[in-house]
């Protein structure tokens, strides 16, 4: 039984990887009080930029991931200009970014339809890969999955243990106080939004150059939105985000293994499962208002004009 689950679990880890990147990026941005609903758009922009560069240079994901990060950060800057410098409605700006990103990626992607890339081979980590069950699930993955582990560790450590982490939290709680004691609130928020964009871009590039290494229009299929929901589910804590992402990875992968696991349900219902699960998860976490309020960055979504 365990043996038949191993490929499912390993698949879940890979499926969760874009959610981890995009979710961590959004988490950092939201910690500073900026809600960017444009993750889906940034992800798609990153996906096509990554795919294009991977395809044109022939270096695959090695070129695609940095390109995706750059493209994601660049589109995030459009959002930042409107939502931060002009203090426009953050939710609507994020939506504009998503609409724009979907259009832009489809527009550029027209040249790459039915193009495919080699993808990445899994790398078995010596010793660790030999641990029963955990080894093949966690340590026989591609390099980007390992990168997601490292990114998680760095983000979690920075937020919990460093002055920078404290500052991000402080800005998210009270931009006025941070401004009063002399911190450049807008600059910090710009930085956090750029980081969020880069992470979403990497998530997209992972999808298009590694996970399913071919270009399909709209290929992120709502993962950006799920990442936003995961941040709420995680109550802005990286560790919970990681766990939530793996849970969703498992739900996503279920549709491909359903028949093997003896589940006989129309494919559309299985495909709808991650989205329905997102709603369920949001409901479960949101009904505890106090828990949410205790962790919610107090200035989230509110424009700052000193």
């Amino acid at each position, binding site marked *: 039984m365990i043996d038949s689950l191993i490929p499912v679990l390993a698949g879940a880890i890979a499926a969760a990887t874009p959610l981890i990147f995009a979710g961590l990026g959004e988490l950092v941005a939201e910690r500073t009080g900026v809600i960017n609903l444009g993750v889906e758009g940034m992800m798609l922009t990153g996906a096509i930029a990554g795919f294009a560069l991977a395809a044109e240079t022939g270096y695959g994901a090695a070129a695609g991931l940095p390109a995706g990060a750059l493209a994601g950060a660049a589109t995030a800057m459009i959002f930042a200009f409107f939502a931060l410098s002009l203090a426009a409605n953050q939710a609507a700006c994020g939506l504009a970014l998503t609409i724009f990103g979907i259009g832009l990626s489809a527009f550029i992607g027209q040249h790459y339809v039915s193009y495919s890339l080699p993808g990445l081979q899994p790398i078995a980590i010596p010793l660790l890969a030999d641990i029963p069950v955990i080894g093949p699930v966690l340590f026989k993955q591609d390099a980007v999955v390992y990168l997601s582990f490292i990114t998680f560790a760095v983000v979690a450590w920075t937020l919990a243990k460093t002055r920078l982490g404290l500052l991000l939290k402080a800005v998210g709680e009270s931009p006025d106080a941070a401004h009063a004691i002399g911190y450049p609130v807008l600059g910090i928020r710009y930085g956090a939004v750029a980081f969020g964009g880069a992470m979403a871009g990497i998530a997209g590039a992972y999808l298009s150059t590694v996970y399913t290494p071919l270009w399909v229009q709209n290929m992120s299929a709502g993962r950006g939105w799920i990442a936003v929901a995961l941040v709420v589910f995680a109550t802005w804590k990286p560790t919970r985000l990681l766990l939530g992402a793996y849970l969703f990875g498992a739900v996503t992968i279920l549709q491909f293994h359903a028949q093997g696991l003896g589940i006989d349900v129309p494919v559309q219902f299985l495909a*709808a499962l991650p989205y329905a699960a997102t709603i369920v998860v949001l409901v479960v976490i949101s009904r505890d208002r106090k828990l949410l309020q205790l962790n919610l960055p107090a200035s989230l979504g509110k424009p700052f004009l000193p």
Partner: protein
Amino acid sequence: MHLLEPRAQPSQLMRWTAPLIAIVATLLAGSFLFWALDKSPIASFQVFFIEPLTTSYGWSELLIKACPLILIAQGLAIGFKARIYNIGAEGQLIIGALFGGGVAIYFDGSDSAWVIPAMVVAGALGGALWGALPALLKTRFNAEETLTTLMLTYVATFILSYMVNGPWRDPEGMNFPQSIMFGDNALFGILLEGSRVNTSVFITLFAVLAFWLFNARSFLSYQLEVGGQAPAASRYAGFSAKQTVWFSLVISGLTAGLAGVGEVAGPVGQLNLNISPGYGFAAIIVAYLGRLHALGIVLAGCLMALIYLGGEAAQVSLQMPAAITGIFQGMLLFFLLGADAFIDNRLRKPIR
């Protein structure tokens, strides 16, 4: 980096010129885009925005596309005023289409004149139901409506896909994911010979008038506005926040559902996977561009319809992907939000 400072008094002038500024900015950015693609901006705009309007057929197509956009945006504007962000009108449209289409399929072959009214009612109910769900989740469980409405859109897409691949698939449709073509009794009557303009126009017309009256005079509309701008003031005055949520989401779901029926009982004529080219999302832009005002939305809806038409024309004449429509939509919303910032703020004076 701080560009703005608050005005004492919101600028009424900016409120109404912001959409024009946004349109001009979008055209400029669009010119740049065309220029970067080695296409003459002027010729491209000719194809995009002028040519569709040179024929009476073009105008009729404009009307066909504008109607659902205007209808959905009217409902969305109610919620946006109260800062209830229903971004899942696309899903509500689909469920409305499914409900209405279900009636058409069930009564296929009937010659009753009541099929169309029944479809309209069913579609409105379906859309309202799909809007009521996030309202329940928000009022009961405090779940953010932005995310739930959007997730429900994906769910709606898969339900549609299941129905047209399964129970409602046309047995003679060569396994295409689509239902039977609806009979004449399940279609809106054509209004103008030789065009696709049909009697569903009257639904939109009625909605515009009703929403205009509602916005201009009703106390409920005032309550929604207060709730959106200052929730604490709304609680202070004793207005019900739950009522606001329910009303906003159910009404916007209802109009989206109606638009869905308008599509399947109009230009589409059946249930399939392409019943809406993203009207539910574009209507968000229409609502804001129209200043959440019933008549402003009519103008904005026409412009958005033109962008759709232009996108189709560009596909044919300029060999550009239809996705260019999305780029224009995104830019338009960005520029609009940017221009809107100047209603309540003005440029910071440089320090002397």
